[in-house]
């Protein structure tokens, strides 16, 4: 595949690691006082674990895994709303596969489907639109979620539905936006982040400009990064280099995909269809101001929240969950009291265990740290006893 293998070359990775090592020595960071670098995006978290990047880096660099997995941060109340919609007899509820196992307060979409709800897994919002064309007597609701990466696709789908005058298609809109979230992280008092690896595919849509505030107002280096191992290593190198040279800028490592101004067609469609919500509730993080996206009133006929009633409840995260603390970097996933015992990828309790992009699932699946192994073997023992 185009530029996939090239960006996995282990020889080139070694060069980067050597450069990072010498800069870290120059900065004087140590294992006890490491540089903390946050990768915001769950896609980066996934690559970091898949390729064991954390173990390759000097101990004086600590990676903090950010909340950038839209499936993981979906709160229980919203999942319950999905279930209420999916269980209506006239509804075909179309969703990405990733969202099927996110726990609601009673069950998830997969269980609802097993119990007879018409839940269909789709690859694209355009597939949901096709379902609407083919099933004129049914109501098709597409479960829209994701950061800016997926927003142009849903916005363009709504515009297409409007053009065709489809009456039986709507979105249950759960899109969230990146910048207010990074701001909330930077404003959190327990945070001490030295630099960011910024989400490459969000940037592909929004461009470089929206991240300027991180460099200008908060004085933190931030590097837009691709998703292959070399991309991430090079981005970490660029962050560390900025720290060593006492600079803070928005740099773009992912030039092969991210243009300075982002994607103008996508941004235009988003501006036409969407607007900000006052607040949006996040699993593990609470409410974040202006972080949610809703459909503008002009397109209300395509808004499932406008057309159907749903419970719309605020359900607190289970009390044993420590996702918030993990997201803020104050504890490591394996330090959560239920990691590997009550909370596993098969039976996720917390958000970060749900998708393979969540930090806890990544540690559970790929982390061969002693603490992770211990949690896993405890689990195996307790399941064999019971």
């Amino acid at each position, binding site marked *: *595949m*185009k*530029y*996939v293998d*090239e*960006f996995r070359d282990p*020889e*080139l990775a*070694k*060069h*980067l690691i*050597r*450069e990072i090592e010498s800069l870290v020595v120059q900065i004087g960071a140590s294992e006890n006082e490491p540089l903390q670098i946050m990768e915001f*995006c*769950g*896609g980066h978290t*996934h690559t970091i674990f898949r390729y064991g990047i954390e173990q390759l880096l000097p101990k004086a660099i600590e990676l903090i895994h950010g909340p950038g*997995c*839209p*499936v993981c941060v979906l709160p229980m109340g919203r999942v319950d709303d999905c279930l209420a919609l999916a269980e209506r007899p006239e509804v075909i509820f179309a969703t*990405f596969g*990733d969202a099927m196992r996110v726990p609601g307060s009673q069950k998830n979409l997969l269980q609802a489907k097993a119990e007879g709800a018409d839940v269909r897994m789709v*690859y*694209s*919002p*355009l*597939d949901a639109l096709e379902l609407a064309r083919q099933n004129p007597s049914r109501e098709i609701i597409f479960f829209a*979620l*994701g*950061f800016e*990466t*997926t927003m*142009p*696709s849903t916005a*363009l789908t709504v515009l*297409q539905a409007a053009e065709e005058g489809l009456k039986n298609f709507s979105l249950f809109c759960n899109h969230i936006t990146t910048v207010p979230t990074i701001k909330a992280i930077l404003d959190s008092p327990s945070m001490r982040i030295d630099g960011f690896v910024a989400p490459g*595919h969000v940037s*592909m*849509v929004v461009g470089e400009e929206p991240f300027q505030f991180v460099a200008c107002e908060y004085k933190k280096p931030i590097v837009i990064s691709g*998703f292959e191992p*070399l991309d991430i290593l*090079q981005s970490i190198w660029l962050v560390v280099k900025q720290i060593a040279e006492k600079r803070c800028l928005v740099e773009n*490592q992912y*030039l*092969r*995909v*991210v*243009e300075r101004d982002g*994607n*103008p*067609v*996508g941004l235009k469609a988003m501006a036409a269809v969407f607007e900000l919500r006052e607040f949006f509730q996040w699993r593990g993080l609470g409410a974040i101001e202006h972080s949610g996206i809703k459909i503008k009133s002009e397109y209300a006929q395509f808004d499932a929240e406008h057309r159907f009633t749903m419970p719309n409840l605020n359900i607190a995260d289970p009390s044993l969950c420590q996702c918030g603390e993990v997201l803020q970097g104050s504890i490591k996933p394996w330090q959560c009291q239920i990691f590997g015992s009550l909370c596993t990828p098969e039976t996720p309790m917390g958000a970060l265990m749900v998708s393979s*992009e969540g930090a806890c699932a990544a540690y559970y699946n790929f982390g061969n740290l002693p603490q992770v192994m211990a949690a896993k073997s405890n689990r195996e023992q307790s399941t064999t006893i019971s």
Partner: protein
Amino acid sequence: MCLGIPGQVVEIVDIEKQLAKVEISGVRRQVSLACIVDNEHPLEACIGDWVLVHVGFAMSRINEDEAKKTLELLMELGEAQKEIEAMSESLSQ
């Protein structure tokens, strides 16, 4: 969902809806090119392009020059390191 897969545009399917067939890891899929066409690069010019596909939409054209430049830079880094190593070795002799 957020990751995106590279693929190559092989055939235009619907000019009005800006749909094309894109070959992704040997499988052909219908993909919307709406986000990557403009006056300078119209739909017909997209055949052969490498694009990054997210949930059924090509969201970016993969810029081969930039990809090569990035890789070259990384290789130069290695060359420089080798030189420094060779230098320090010859000094220590």
